[in-house]
Each structure stands twice: as structure tokens, then as C-alpha cells.
């Protein structure tokens, strides 16, 4: 009766995706099937490439959010942080372009990364040292970042310098062996993130802090440091997303990134990460981001939904995707 005496060993999460974590992928498969039935063009290579490439932004940000959320936090500021970082980056590049030419691009990228990390640090510090509910803290910084970009652009738009535009374009529109660069970037980010979350001390502690703060603290983990670090990772991911994003739209406006936070959190949760912390799923998050983008795509490709009802149908599909995800776990 040894079989009853010990609980069955669970599949280790990590590189290999266990059955219990297949939910988001099943939901994705269901969606793709439905999409195909509605409009066969849905599966055209071109369309798939477009959609997946687009999902890269939300995907990369959501990978960062996977850390924040699995450590028991929440970051509502990501959308306006993205706008802010984009704005700073474009201003720096435009300022440097006349003197250094296209070298302004790597400079801008570096500045973006530093800005992102600083923003993340700010969020993390307010949450951990100020001991303020992350929801409120990041709602506050959401207003702050949004206001800063509005201020920087005088309520208007900052566009990237024409001289840089063509040099920078490939970052979004280019490809390597046919695979669009944003997809490669987000795969790289996901790989690194999965390694950090599943294969390093930090990742372990991040999840532990989210699972039970007391246990983590009593085990000698500096909860504040781990949490802050998660926000910093989030900031860095937002910066990377912004770097890929700039060539697509070529400008930062006060409405850039509006409501992304909701999409990001949705992607994370659909991906199987627990919103109350203690469980993070990097690949699930990636699938979640793709799902969201596919839903939007499907709305455009299908013709029988009144334009007024698009939001409703999207809402219903998200709930159904979540149901599929939940069901596969039981």
C-alpha cells in the first residue's frame, strides 16, 4: 500500500510543459480551429506571422508581469510606462541623431533600458518600502508616467527622426530566416525568463514569496528585495517591448499603451499564472498573449459581428478560453 502512503510525484514544471499546464495551449488550439472554420485565410502564413509578431509587445511585457504577479504583486503602470519609455527613447534618439547619426539608435535603446529599470525600481520601492498595496502604488505611478509623457510631448506627439526611421525599421519589420525579429526577441525573452523563473535561486524565491510571504521571510529570504527585483524585471521587459515597438508606430503619443495593463494581466492569467501569486507560467503567458491577439484578429476577419458588439464577443471568448484552461486542469 505504499502507493497510498505517498502522494504521487508531480511533473516538474519547467522546460517541459506538463499536462496540467496545457490549458492555455488547448485554448489556443481551439481558437485557431474556430478561426479556420470562420475564415480559412486565418491560417495563411502571412496572417499568422502578423498576429504572432504583434503579440510580441504584450507578450514581452506580460513575461515581466509573470514575475511580478507570481511574486504576489501587480503592476498597473506598464501601459503608461511603455509610453513614457518610448517617449524618452525617441527624444534621446532625435537629440543625438544630428551629431552621431544612426549610432543614436543603440544609444536610445540603452537609455530605454535604463529608464525601464528605473521605473521598475520606483514601483518596487513604493510597494516594498512604502508598504503600499501594489494595486494602488502602480495606479499612482500609472498616472505619473502618463502625465510625464503628456508633459514631454506638450500633449501632442513625438515622432522619431526621419533620418533614423529607415535604419530602425528592421527591428520590427525585418526577419531572420523568415522569422520576424519581434518573434525572435520575444522567444529570447521568454527563454531567459523561463530560465530565471524555473532554474535560478531568484526564480525560486520569487515564487516562494508569492506563495507564502511568512514562510519566505522566516526562511531568511528578503521579501522586499525579491519583490522589488520582480518590478525591476517588469520594467526591463517593458523597455524591451518599447524598443521593438518604436519602429512600428514611429511615435509616442499620450495615448500610447493605453489599457495595455489589462491585456497584460489577462494574458498572464489566461496563461495559468495565479493572480494571487505563488505560481508562474512563462510559456503559458506567451500563449495567453497570442490568444488575445488572435481573438482581436478573428474579430477583424469575421464579418458577422456588429462593430458595436466586438467588445462583447471578445469578452465572451476570453471567458470561454479561461473555462477551457480551467477545465483541462481538473
Amino acid at each position, binding site marked *: 500500500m505504499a502507493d497510498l502512503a505517498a502522494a504521487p510525484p508531480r511533473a516538474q514544471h519547467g522546460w517541459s510543459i506538463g499536462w496540467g499546464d496545457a490549458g492555455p495551449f488547448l485554448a489556443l488550439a481551439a481558437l485557431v480551429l474556430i478561426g479556420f472554420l470562420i*475564415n480559412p485565410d486565418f491560417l495563411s502564413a502571412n496572417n499568422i506571422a502578423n498576429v504572432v509578431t504583434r503579440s510580441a509587445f504584450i507578450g514581452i511585457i506580460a513575461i515581466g508581469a509573470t514575475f511580478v504577479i507570481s511574486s504576489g504583486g501587480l503592476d498597473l503602470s506598464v501601459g503608461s510606462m511603455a509610453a513614457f519609455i518610448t517617449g524618452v527613447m525617441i527624444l534621446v534618439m532625435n537629440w543625438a541623431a544630428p551629431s552621431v547619426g544612426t549610432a543614436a539608435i543603440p544609444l536610445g535603446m540603452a537609455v530605454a533600458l535604463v529608464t525601464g529599470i528605473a521605473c521598475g525600481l520606483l514601483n518596487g520601492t513604493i510597494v516594498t518600502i512604502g508598504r503600499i498595496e501594489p494595486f494602488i502604488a502602480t495606479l499612482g505611478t500609472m498616472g505619473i508616467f502618463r502625465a510625464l509623457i503628456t508633459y514631454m510631448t506638450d*500633449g*501632442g506627439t513625438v515622432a522619431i527622426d526621419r533620418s533614423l526611421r529607415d535604419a530602425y525599421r528592421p527591428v520590427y519589420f525585418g526577419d531572420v530566416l523568415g522569422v520576424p525579429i519581434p518573434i525572435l526577441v520575444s522567444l529570447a525573452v521568454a527563454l531567459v525568463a523561463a530560465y530565471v523563473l524555473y532554474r535560478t535561486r531568484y526564480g525560486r524565491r520569487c515564487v516562494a514569496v508569492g506563495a507564502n510571504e511568512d514562510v519566505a521571510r522566516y526562511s531568511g529570504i528578503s521579501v522586499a528585495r525579491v519583490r522589488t527585483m520582480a518590478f525591476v524585471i517588469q520594467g526591463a521587459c517593458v523597455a524591451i517591448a518599447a524598443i521593438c515597438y518604436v519602429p512600428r508606430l514611429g511615435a509616442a503619443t499620450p495615448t500610447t499603451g493605453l489599457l495595455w495593463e489589462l491585456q497584460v494581466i489577462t494574458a498572464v492569467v489566461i496563461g495559468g499564472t495565479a493572480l494571487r501569486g505563488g505560481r508562474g507560467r512563462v510559456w503559458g503567458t506567451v500563449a495567453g498573449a497570442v490568444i488575445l491577439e488572435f481573438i482581436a484578429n478573428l474579430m477583424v476577419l469575421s464579418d458577422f459581428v456588429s462593430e458595436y458588439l*466586438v467588445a462583447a464577443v471578445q469578452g465572451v471568448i476570453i471567458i470561454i478560453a479561461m473555462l477551457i484552461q480551467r477545465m483541462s486542469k481538473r
Partner: protein
Amino acid sequence: AEKKTIAVSIPAADHGWTAGVVYHANAAAKEINKAFPDLEVIVKTSPSASAQVSAIEDLSATRKLDALVILPHSSEELTTPVKTIKEKGSFITVVDRGLNDPNIQDLYVAGDNIAVGFNTAKFLVEKMGGKGNLVVLRGIPTVIDDERIKGFQDGIKGSDLKILDIQYANWNSDEAFKLMQDYLAKYPQIDAVWANDDDMLLGVLEAIKQSGRKDIKFALGGNGMKEIIEKVMAGDAMTPVETPYPPSMIKTAIYLTAAHFAGHAPVRGSLKLDAPLITKANAAEYHFPDSPF
């Protein structure tokens, strides 16, 4: 003949004016689809600039677009994507907000945001004898908002009209109501109010009515909302004029684009809709009782 596809990409109905755009676009699509069996008009709305970029990408990835009628969320962000569509051989009609590169468009139908601000300002300067205290409500930080404010500021230049305060109310009547209440609490003497959109004007009027203050002589808006036009027609003392910025411009654009295919002559060029002052005399021309806007 082969069926031609005209795609219409517009912002989602997130406030009164854009709602009007959606209404008119849908109406045009229905009428044209019925009248011209060779044309198919499909309307897609997008809640943000990036969603709009996605939407036109999706449309062009999955079918051949003979024409694209687009009311861009923002000029900067949509220039490159629309250019890509153009390069695939589509006829491009741009509505309202111009793209950064005017060479992209085959047809341009637009209102004049600067004139909306400027004409309103001129009216106030004239009626108030060149002096008085103003408060201004602006919308969501975008180009349209910026242009209207700029036009207005140019319009009062040289007069003694003074802008006491200017704040965002996000083209939202609720927020405008609150903002106006606060303006009223802050400034004991306000001679005129300008809300750069009629949605906001509704809130402003309600707040003024509640306060019972008599110092405000004019409360003006802009866009040509049905309710406001009705006020003008009725000879309202506080809102005697209005500037049009009709959402129906999308309908005009769709029809012109359809004419390019259905008619016998090519249609090209640009059509700038004026923003003349609507007064009691000509208000009836701008009144569409069936439109939701």
C-alpha cells in the same frame, strides 16, 4: 465584373463624435452594398492606434483591398502602415486627420480643426468687445485637441480676452461637468466658456445651470452635435453659434471612394470641409435628426 472591396477603418465608438463616425460609416456601407452589387464595403473599428494598425494589417493580409478609407487614430502611428497598403496597390482615402506623408493619399476628406477653434474665438472676440475672462476645456491629448486649442489661441490673439484656465476633460461630459463646477468655484467672474467638443459642452451647461450664476454670457462647443444645433436653432442666448465638424464626413469619403470605382471618372484630390459658424440662420442645414450624434 469582379467584386471590388472597400475597407473602412475607423476608431471605435468611444465618445459622441466617434460614435457618429461609426454610425455614418455603417449607414454608408449598408447603402452602397445594396446599391452597387459590384462593391463590397466592410467597416472595422479599432479602440486604439495600435489596434488600428493591426486591423489594417489583418485586412490586407487576408484579402485584396481595392480601396482603404481610413480615419486614423493618430497621424504619426498610421503613416507607415497605410503606406504599406498603398504599395500593394490600394486606393487610399484619408479622412479627418492627415497622414504625415500626403503623397500616400489618393483622396483626402477632412474637417478643419484649426478653424473650429479659430472661428469660435473670433466670434467671442467680436461679441464680447474684445475683453473678458474665459475658461477652456480640452479633450484627450491628441493632435485634434492640440489643433483646436491652437486655433482658438490664435483667434483671441491681440484681444483682451483672457484664458483664466485650461484643463483636460477627456471629451467626456461627466468630467466636463465636474471641471466646470470647479471652475465656477474657483473664479468668481467668468464671461465665457469654450469646450472644444459638444460632449463636454453638455456637462458644462448642466453645471452652469446648477450654479445659477449669471455672469457667464457664452458657453460654446464644437462638432455639430444634434442637441447643440437644436439649441442654436432655438436661438439659445448662451449657445447662439456652433462650429460643425460633422462625423458624416466619413460617409462623404466612402461615397466618393465608391464613385471612383462605380463611376466613370477617377476621383482624386482633397476636400476640406469648412468650419463656418453655424447660426440660427443656417442651422437647419446642419441638423440630422436621425443621426445619433
